[in-house]
């Protein structure tokens, strides 16, 4: 789950990390009032994606009138596919220097990784490529944690001057928040050294592990829900992973890998899949609900049912599809390929109850479905 800047800062603040004063505003009037209370401000689009500055989603405003105009310009923009419905109106900071700091899950070391760079405000990939000497990284033993001594070691040799102590403190704080909230990524760019010597996060990018939301209920309501279509919402309510696409060949398969592959083969055969939907794992018993979902997409002109059962029993899945087919009575053609656990029974059921002969090769079933959708 991604957290917009204001939500990420709110999580930091709740955990005792001080952040700049700011207000979340949904209209130009609100932005104007906020600026009147705060003084000179920055008006920033709130969307769960990066590149806001480059898209024109961040503007300085010296007066309440300028804040109103800035909010007017930014609200309603679309950034990275997200419509901007709210802006953060935040005090302008007297910035002396800008840094980069992040804590993230690192698949290579299979541990948390703390990153720091004296090059703030830039993409970290760019820093790594152009100024590698300014970038420090430390893999952390998650059982031991990351303390002040680790932070000092990480910052060794960087010219930080008076900022070294508050920066080290901030890194320890960021690691603490990362651990506390099961973050996949907590990135502060820029992390600013102010003229008064304080170090404060001027931005905040927070991603919390979806698998850990059950124990992060207290902050989950602050997170930005991924925008879902009506059908995707239905899938979520059924606990099925459904992604709506713009094609015309419906896909029903089991397991993430096989479902992706079915979509690939549809494309390879010159067609376009109308969805991703997997009924692997425990969801294999939901064949009926799954088929209903796939057929509810008005773009669907044909359907391919591709089962390769291991854990998921193909006879159970096929039974669900057959039952749904008889209930829904769709008019589009369907093409089956069924292999693996329960295969003989599944094939017999499809043949006898639907009068359809499954294809032996998955590629042949998919080609036929693509042809039928034309």
């Amino acid at each position, binding site marked *: 789950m991604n957290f917009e800047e204001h939500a990420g800062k709110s999580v930091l603040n709740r955990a005792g990390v001080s952040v700049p004063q700011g207000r979340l505003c949904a209209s130009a009037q609100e932005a104007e009032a906020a600026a009147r209370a705060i003084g000179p401000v920055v008006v920033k689009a709130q969307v769960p994606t990066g590149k806001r500055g480059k898209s024109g989603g961040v503007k300085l405003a010296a007066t309440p009138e300028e804040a109103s105009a800035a909010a007017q310009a930014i609200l309603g923009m679309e950034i990275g596919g997200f419509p901007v419905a709210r802006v953060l109106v935040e005090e302008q900071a007297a910035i002396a220097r800008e840094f980069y700091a992040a804590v993230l899950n690192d698949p290579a070391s*299979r541990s948390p990784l703390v990153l720091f760079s004296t090059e703030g405000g830039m993409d970290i990939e760019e820093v790594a490529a152009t100024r590698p000497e300014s970038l420090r990284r430390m893999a952390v033993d998650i*059982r031991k944690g990351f303390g002040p001594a680790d932070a000092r070691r990480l910052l060794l040799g960087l010219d930080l001057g008076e900022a070294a102590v508050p920066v080290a403190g901030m890194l320890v704080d960021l690691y603490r928040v990362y651990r506390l909230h099961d973050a996949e990524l907590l990135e502060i760019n820029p992390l600013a050294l102010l003229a008064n010597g304080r170090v404060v996060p001027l931005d905040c990018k927070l991603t919390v592990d979806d698998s850990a939301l059950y124990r992060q209920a207290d902050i989950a309501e602050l997170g930005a829900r991924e925008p879902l279509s009506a059908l995707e919402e239905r899938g979520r309510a059924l606990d099925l992973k459904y992604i709506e696409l713009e094609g015309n060949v419906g896909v029903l398969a089991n*397991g*993430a890998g096989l479902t992706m592959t079915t979509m690939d*083969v*549809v494309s390879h055969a010159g067609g376009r899949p109308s969805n991703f939907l997997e009924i692997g794992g425990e969801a294999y018993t939901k064949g009926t609900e799954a088929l209903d979902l796939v057929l509810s997409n008005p773009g669907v002109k044909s359907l391919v049912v591709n089962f390769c059962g*291991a854990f998921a029993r193909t006879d159970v899945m096929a039974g669900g599809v057959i039952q749904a087919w008889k209930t829904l009575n769709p008019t589009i053609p369907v093409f089956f390929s069924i*292999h693996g656990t329960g295969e003989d029974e599944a094939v017999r059921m499809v043949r006898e109850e639907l009068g359809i002969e499954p294809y032996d090769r998955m590629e042949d079933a998919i080609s036929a479905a693509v042809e039928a959708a034309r």
Partner: protein
Amino acid sequence: MIVRKSDRVLVQGITGKQGTFWTEQMQAYGTTVVGGVNPKKAGQNHCGVPIFATAKEAMANGGFDVSVMFIPPAAAKAAAIDAIEAGAKTVVCLTEHIPSHDVMEMHAAAAEHGTRIIGPNTAGIVTPGEGFVGIMPAFNPRIFQPGRVGVISRSGSLGTLVCLNLVRGGHGQSAFLGIGGDPMIGTTTKDALAALIDDPGTDAIALVGEIGGSMEEEAAELVAKTDKPVVSFIAGRASPPGKKMGHAGAIVTGDRGSYASKRGALERAGAVVVDVPGDLPAALDALMAEAAKRSGAQRLAD
């Protein structure tokens, strides 16, 4: 990580519905299951083997080599660390959706104790004709046959399809190594490839990849160094960027983890990457014939 009949297997969570079903399947296939774990039923027998309160207790009473976990996400970390601290050589973690911070704690413990973790979110490992650990249809002879091709897959369902295609094309498997669909897994594509390159029973390798992460790119370094033919299929070419395709690890963000990057790295290293899984057997035949010709020429030269 290739499962042998001599490997003694402990089943954590043996008394649950899935634990029971798959323990019976493993036993019927010939896997040496020596016990199970369930703290509430310790001292009883289940599937003909003793139940222990902990993996440590199992280690103290007869011992085991490999633990396979049928444990829900919230309890998986504790179970894995129990097995690791007990001295398991390998822990096969089938569980999906374990919080990443828990997974990192598991890996830190495994690194300290020299334990190999396979998974999380793996469907398991199979040595056809010898044994299997996990939830793969090893017992289906249309899918698994003893042979000389090693198969690596992040996905159980796609791995099953690939094995089916291979058997249909006349190729049995020396081993199936399911490594898991999570972003952070213990045994990587590269580790699995290294094991198959070292395995004298493996003549050729089918590497089944997926979009997301950079494991296939890292494995390509080894492809370039081995004489064993490597064929590959990478899933996710048609998947839209920014969406997790069922597997937490299968997501393309920016330029990272793309299909083109993986295919390019493998092809540059000398692997043959096919467009559809059904083309794998023919690609394998061609590469193996070429390799046989090369080694024949080598023998004549000697």
